[in-house]
């Protein structure tokens, strides 16, 4: 038996985020939220562990009422319970980790599974912070997870090599994208997921402190932008630059 908590992150659909041409600021208002790609792999992995070892999968998502579609997707893949924590809208990793940790502490679990680094804010800090807040060891960037008795064994994918590491549970496991290929759930499961109740828990707003935002804007390109359509002119120019650079 392995009880798994899986953490799901929602983020703005980055393809739909446009840049205001005057202010250079991103236009995120009214951009629909989508599930962060690694979270989908995390849900898939949690469900695979349940299918292999039995147990329960509880999904936790920081969001609001509009997030139910994302949670239903997790249900369709095979999550048993879903909790949406409503009221947290900060983007400060320290606060995010604290909100998540206080919820995780209330739920019996052997493993907490989450993505290693999200595609929008790219901080990669949550796994380590949760490990310290919950005092559970972190097995990071897993490409494979196996449970043997009361231990969990992970293939950790690093830049230079892969290492096999092991600890007694409970533990935090962050996953790498190559761990699995998320399934496309059958229609029956998608329909059943739609009827499944989601627990929504309101929390008081968390105020970020310590970090002040000065600006958030798209960088301007300072390149020369000499674009040639006439190759008789363009190629000699490029060759000159390359020859200069080779010196």
């Amino acid at each position, binding site marked *: 038996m392995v009880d798994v908590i899986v953490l799901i992150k929602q983020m703005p659909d*980055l393809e739909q*985020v446009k*840049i205001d041409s005057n202010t250079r600021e*991103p236009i*995120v208002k009214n951009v629909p939220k989508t599930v962060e790609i690694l979270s989908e792999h995390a849900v898939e992995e949690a469900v695979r562990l349940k299918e292999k070892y039995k147990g329960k999968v509880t999904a936790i998502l920081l969001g609001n009422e509009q997030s139910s579609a994302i949670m239903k997707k997790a249900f369709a893949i095979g999550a048993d319970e879903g909790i949406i924590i409503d009221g947290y809208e900060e983007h400060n*990793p320290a606060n995010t980790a604290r909100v998540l940790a206080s919820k995780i502490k209330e739920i019996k679990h052997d493993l907490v599974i989450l993505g290693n*680094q999200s*595609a929008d*804010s*790219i*901080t*990669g*800090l*949550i*796994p*380590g*912070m*949760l490990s*310290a807040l919950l005092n559970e*060891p972190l*097995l*990071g960037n897993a490409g494979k997870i196996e449970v043997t008795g009361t231990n969990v*064994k992970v293939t*950790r*994918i690093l*830049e*230079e*090599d*892969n*290492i*096999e*590491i092991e*600890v007694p549970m409970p533990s935090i496991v*962050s996953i790498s994208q190559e761990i699995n290929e998320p399934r496309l759930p059958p229609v029956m499961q998608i329909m059943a997921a739609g009827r499944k109740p989601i627990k929504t828990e309101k929390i008081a707003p968390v105020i970020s402190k*310590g*970090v*002040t*935002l*000065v*600006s*958030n804007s*798209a*960088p301007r*390109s300072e*390149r*020369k*932008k*000499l*674009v*040639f*359509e006439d*190759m008789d002119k*363009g*190629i000699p120019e*490029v*060759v000159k*630059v*390359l020859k200069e*650079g*080779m010196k």
Partner: protein
Amino acid sequence: MKFLVFSENAGSLSQMITYLREKGEVIGVGVEKSSSEAANFGALRMYSIKGDILSDSIAKLLEELFKKEGIDNIFLSSSILGRETAGILSVSMGAGIVPEINEISFEGSKARTKRFYLGGKTVLEEESQAKIFTVSPGISDAIKSDKNSEVISLSAPVSKIKILSRQPKKSEGSNIENAKIIVCIGRGLGKKEGIESVKPLVEAVHGEIAGSRPVCLDYQWLGEDRQIGLSGKKVRPAIYVGIGVSGQIQHIAGMRGSKIVIAINKDKTAPIFEESDYGLVGDLYQIIPKIVEKLS
């Protein structure tokens, strides 16, 4: 100010030391390999950790050195290990943290930092009293200093995690992060065999070949260690030549530090031209042989 700078990667460690040595006194921390290779970039002292390193034990060690050395700020390279360690450290020290920085300046104890956001679409400029920073690779060129660091060997505290085995990754030899000229191929190459047409150019400029995310991860035309981008390597060569690279923002985030950017693409609206110094609009299979011919 006094900085503690950690990386298990020699390139990142020397870049960070080069970048920070003008702003304060630097104490370096590395593993055996990174500490010895980064010992002449201007750090006052270099701690060299013996044996296996895991995020929980590195966090403990850095916290001890922070106290012992009277450090103001800790910098860790943004690697898998670095990000995990930074997260643990910020909780155990109760200290503020700003991740993935690619620029920092200080005004008293206040830090002003920049980092990419929204998948690289925007840059966040922030002010904080943070004590811990993770540093995006490529923050600076690595420039040697005439000062040699005193190297002090030490062991990391015992980790809760047991290492069972280790498999080195297959790598194609050379490291694109050190290349002076990079020829980067993208989806626009059309087929894996197209690489044969690009190779003469790579050889002619004595460069290294690299690829975008689709080329390295989705189609696997090149190894993972040749991927440039937000999720791959961040490079800053003297010249970057993009061939059939469309210029998705995640890719731009990995090559923005290049001194000169050349792009070849048949689509004149490709975003890469906005990020290029020189652009050639046309069929790469016709253009490349002509460039090679003129170079020889």
